[in-house]
């Protein structure tokens, strides 16, 4: 059982989260406005700046925002920003009350998280996305899925592998359906693929027949006096093996470094499977 003080601590942590949520809804002591179009959020500098590097930089220094106490943002979806601010205060958000498909919503959340450098938000959004497409059987075939892919490849940066891999995994699993011209219900998807070359290239790479590269096979000879037969063996550095010669039964309990003195050649072998 966890020590008593840990229970206390857990309770305190929970209380902290509750208090922070209250702070968000009550809008007490707010000292910063975030504006997007005609929407305004009244927030707390201390909290927002601590959770987002973008807001931290905006509120520091000599720029206009620091003086006015207003950060006006552009090019974003109000419902996404709303949930992002929720997340900033609560470490969670729910997309159920949005009108957008969860797939699309979460991709947009990833983009916002990356743009505004909100810690851990992108990871949460990706895992939510993964949950939806894996659990809603037909999600992969929806128009929203195709739209989500298009947005993912244009609004997040290339090095965000988690988001891309999650989407690609689903596409590859259903590639035989999605890419067939005769299935017109996927025309939207195919159209998207045609317009999003970086996505198509990645799918193609995954669909190509994979090569299996075997480890390096070294050739050794048996040190037994009457044997001297040669072998192939895939021992790598640092590996401890007990070795028995197939031909004469020579046995030695020494490790790899001892083996090394009987190595004849080092051959990388590529075998197609």
């Amino acid at each position, binding site marked *: 059982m966890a020590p008593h003080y840990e229970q206390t601590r857990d309770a305190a942590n929970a209380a902290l989260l509750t208090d922070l949520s209250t702070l968000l809804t009550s809008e007490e002591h707010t000292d910063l406005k975030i504006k997007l179009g005609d929407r305004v959020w009244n927030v707390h500098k201390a909290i927002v700046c601590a959770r987002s590097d973008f807001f931290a930089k905006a509120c520091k220094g000599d720029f206009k925002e620091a003086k006015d106490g207003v950060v006006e943002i552009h090019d974003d979806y109000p419902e996404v920003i709303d949930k992002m601010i929720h997340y900033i205060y609560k470490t969670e958000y729910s997309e159920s009350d949005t009108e957008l498909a969860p797939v699309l919503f979460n991709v947009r959340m990833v983009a916002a998280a990356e743009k505004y*450098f909100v810690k851990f938000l992108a990871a949460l959004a990706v895992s939510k996305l993964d949950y939806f497409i894996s659990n809603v059987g037909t999600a992969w075939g929806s128009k929203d899925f195709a739209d989500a892919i298009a947005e993912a490849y244009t609004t997040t940066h290339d090095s965000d592998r988690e988001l891309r891999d999650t989407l690609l995994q689903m596409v590859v699993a259903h590639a035989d359906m999605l890419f067939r011209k005769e299935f017109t219900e996927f025309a939207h998807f195919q159209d998207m693929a045609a317009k999003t070359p970086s996505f198509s290239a990645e799918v193609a790479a995954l669909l190509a027949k994979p090569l299996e590269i075997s480890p390096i096979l070294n050739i050794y000879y048996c040190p037994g006096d009457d044997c001297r037969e040669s072998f192939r063996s895939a021992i790598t550095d640092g590996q401890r093996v007990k070795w028995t010669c197939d031909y004469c039964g020579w046995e030695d309990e020494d490790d790899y470094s001892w083996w090394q003195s009987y190595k004849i050649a080092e051959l990388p072998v590529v075998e197609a499977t």
Partner: protein
Amino acid sequence: MATRGTRKIRPPRRGLNNGEMDFEQTWAILASAFTQIHEKQASKLSYEELYRNAYKIVLKKKGDELYLRVAEFERDWLGSEIQRRIHKELPPQLMNALQGRSSAGSAGDNQVRKQGERFLRQLKLAWEDHQTCMSMLTDVLMYMDRVYCTDTRRPSIFTTAMSLFRDCILRSHVRGDDSWPDICGTLNHVILDQIRMERDGDFIDKHLIKVNVYMLEGLYDSHHEVEEEKLYLTSFEYEFLASSAEFYRALGDRLLKESDAGQYCRETRNRIDEENDRCRSTLSESTTPKIQKVVEDELIRYRMKDLIESESGVRFMITNERHDDLALVFDLEARVDPRKPELTKALQKIILEMGTNLNDAAQVGAAAEVPEDKAKAPADRLVNQQTVAALKWVEDVLELKDKFDAIWKQSFQSDQTIHTAIMRSTAEFINSHPRCAEYMSLFIDDNMKKGIKGKTELEIEVLLDKAIVLLRYVQEKDVFELYYKKHLGKRLLMGRSLSIDVEKQMISRMKMELGNNFTAKLEGMFKDMTLSEELTAGYKGYVARLGDADPRRIDLAINVLTSMTWPVETTNSAPDDARESRLKTIYPPAVERIRQGFENYYKEKYSGRMLDWKGNMGTADVKVTFPKVPSKDGFKERRHELNVSTYAMLILLLFNDLPSGASLSLEEIQARTNIPTNELVRNLQSLAVAPKTRILLKEPMSKDIKDTDKFFFNEGFMSKFLKVKIGIVSAGNRIENDRERVETEKKNNDSRGYAIEAAVVRIMKQRKELSHQQLVTETITQLNSQFKPDVNMIKKRIESLIEREYLERIEDSPSSSYRYLA
């Protein structure tokens, strides 16, 4: 299919995924904002707008171009505007002065200094502005830094901008003239110039320099940002250390010439502290150990020898008891070398010289020894003078040692290395005095007889300690033992010791210092003394029990000495008396009876022991009645109690049987007593020559005693005292004359020979076989606590042991080796 066909909300501007972005247009927005930032007019700019534009560019995969444009922008800005501002502060006059190309007067100096400060201030300003602006740009370009730079492993834009500052500002040349140093070099010159002023006692703006040093510390020589490539290290520090070395070399020269060593030390210490402060307040703390080494090298390491040997150096300080200055010298050298080689060397030399002076002085005091058979009395006086010189030598040695001990404690922090050095040199000069062992023993002897009189226990304690300390230095412990035994023997037998207690304390200290072996025989001497007292008392009782209560009986106090324990000269007669010593001394019947009586008593107690009577060692109290002579009290018989040596008693007893006025010749006296000639002569001298104790008259009256001299009883002897002590000429402990010393040496060599043989046999018995070299080494090790054996002597002893078949040579062994023969 809950989501399918849901109405989508399209926000008014959704430009990102589909919207086109014109790079040039976007960059123009950024560039104009950057200009505003550099001109410190950022307050109207929206961070969000700039960030968003930069974000868009990177998202559109134009991060590469953005990065290059920003760098280009900075290069332009630094290369034109900032460079111009800096170069403006470098007028030709300043550049010339820094290069030493013009010789400005002091007025010019001041102007150059002002110009230098202006330059520093401008550079500081440029650097600080650049930092501020770049930190703002970095904020704006955060997305580029975190995404583009991280993915492509480019240095952050901030780092690149810092390198640009180095390239565009620090590496630029004033008016594009390559023959001048670049700004970085100029900066070095200006800073070094300021430091020079501060070293000369001026006040400078430390903070101003510190900021510029910060800049150098924040920049690197190339794009590898490794610690060793900091501009501070590659550009400034080297020059700083080099110019400092030059400065301190010159200072060292000047100080050595102009001030005394104490001042030199103080100045050096101040300079080191000053440089430490300078690193902290003006430069970088990372330089502290390096500049310290420079100062230590130039002012201490390379100068220590000159300093110590200078006229006002260590010798002067020691002579004049400048303990604080010595402490400074110690401090300084300890900084550069924990072994303090120069100070140690100097101290050793000085101690050795002072010690040698003492030795020489003692030699002068003891010099000009008159041949022995010349007039006896002057020779004795000479011997006494020498004894005084010997005692003075020991006192001087003690004083010297105390002096250095005090210096060691006060000035050298009781340092172990120095202690060893002092010990070694002291031991060296003490042992270089050939008679040190004898002198030390004499010193103790003198104190035991006179020195401790009226002293408190504590003072005596100190004295004993001193004696032991000195003894520690003496290498030839065996020689010392020989002399100590001799001196102690005389003290004990003649009752000259002031306190047997103190004597015993001395012995127990020696025992602690030198071990049991050393004191066994000395303790034996004390035991003999105690036993003898018991014997005397026992004999008295024995006589009483015999019932022979003769009132005229002679009281006997006897000392029975164990022959091996006591020094040879007390138990054996001198060798040249060998012939005479075979003759038995003839005792008159009254004495002989007593002698026999005691021998009987003794043999009863201890059978099988031989008693050998030592007439030369004993004393006797003799009551003498002198005939009436006129005196102011009228006619009276005079009785005196004479305290004389045993021999003198025998001589006087002869006159008992002689009619008044009759005489005896020397030969007659000798024939009737068998006293050895030299003893007889000495006793007759005290009885007949010494003016105050002239119990006998001699004819002819002269100082020398000749065979044909005649002796009469002096009936007219006069003395104010009832008791008269008739001393034997030169019976006290004094330094030996040459003949005696040769003898002592010979005896000592003999006993060393035995000690060596014993050691060799002990070693061989254990090891069975050993090479010559090993045997010699082990023998020396074993005997080291007693004396330093002479290798030749060891060789001879080994030869002798082989002859006597204790050992044999191992034939056909490559190096000469021996085998033990059981």
